[in-house]
């Protein structure tokens, strides 16, 4: 067997490429979100056609980001894929349970304000982060 320096960066190179690709798609998605939310108010005065195009573009770029995320996941080695999927499962579970309970709060008059979906998204992101860190610590 010959172990050379050239061989040593296959996984790292692939992961680096996929991470950069995912970062670009995520950035593009955030930009299209911004355009779809603020464009109607600031730039085209709620023109239906332009708003439809902006939302369609946001959905199309979102689909691209999902595919890029899939490619990223497939490029990981099996331990990191497991850590990623475990964190996803935790985030999805917490998001589902919390969103359901949070949605009920207004109806049962436990909160006075309208529940905001963004709070659930932030919670899911934080849960995913905690799950990923916990996974890395577990297998360190």
């Amino acid at each position: 067997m010959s172990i050379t320096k050239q061989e040593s960066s296959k996984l790292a190179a692939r992961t680096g490429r996929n991470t950069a690709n995912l970062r670009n798609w995520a950035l593009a998605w955030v930009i299209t979100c911004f355009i779809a939310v603020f464009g109607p108010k600031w730039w085209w005065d709620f023109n239906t056609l332009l708003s439809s195009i902006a939302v369609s573009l946001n959905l199309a770029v979102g689909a691209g980001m999902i595919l890029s995320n899939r490619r990223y996941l497939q490029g990981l080695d099996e331990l990191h894929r497991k850590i990623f999927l475990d964190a996803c499962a935790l985030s999805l579970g917490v998001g589902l349970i919390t969103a359901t309970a949070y949605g009920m709060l207004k109806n049962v008059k436990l909160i006075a304000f309208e529940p905001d979906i963004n709070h659930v998204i932030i919670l899911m992101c934080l849960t995913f982060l905690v799950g990923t860190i916990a996974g890395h610590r577990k297998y360190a």
Partner: protein
Amino acid sequence: MKNRLKVLRAERDWTQAQLADELDVSRQTINAIEKGKFDPSLPLAFKAARLFKLSIEDIFQDEGAAEQGEYSQGGY
């Protein structure tokens, strides 16, 4: 699952990073397998077996089966 990965690696004087590169996984994965914290998939186990020119059973042993073997040898 028990394994002899660390011993086999040491016999060949390879580092975890070198073995990880050969198996196209991260060093963290090799470390977790060696410590018994993570069980590799069948394709990865086959890859390791090919690399060391051994059978999978020579590298990985199922702890449950090993215990059963000990019991049967002891007449249980």
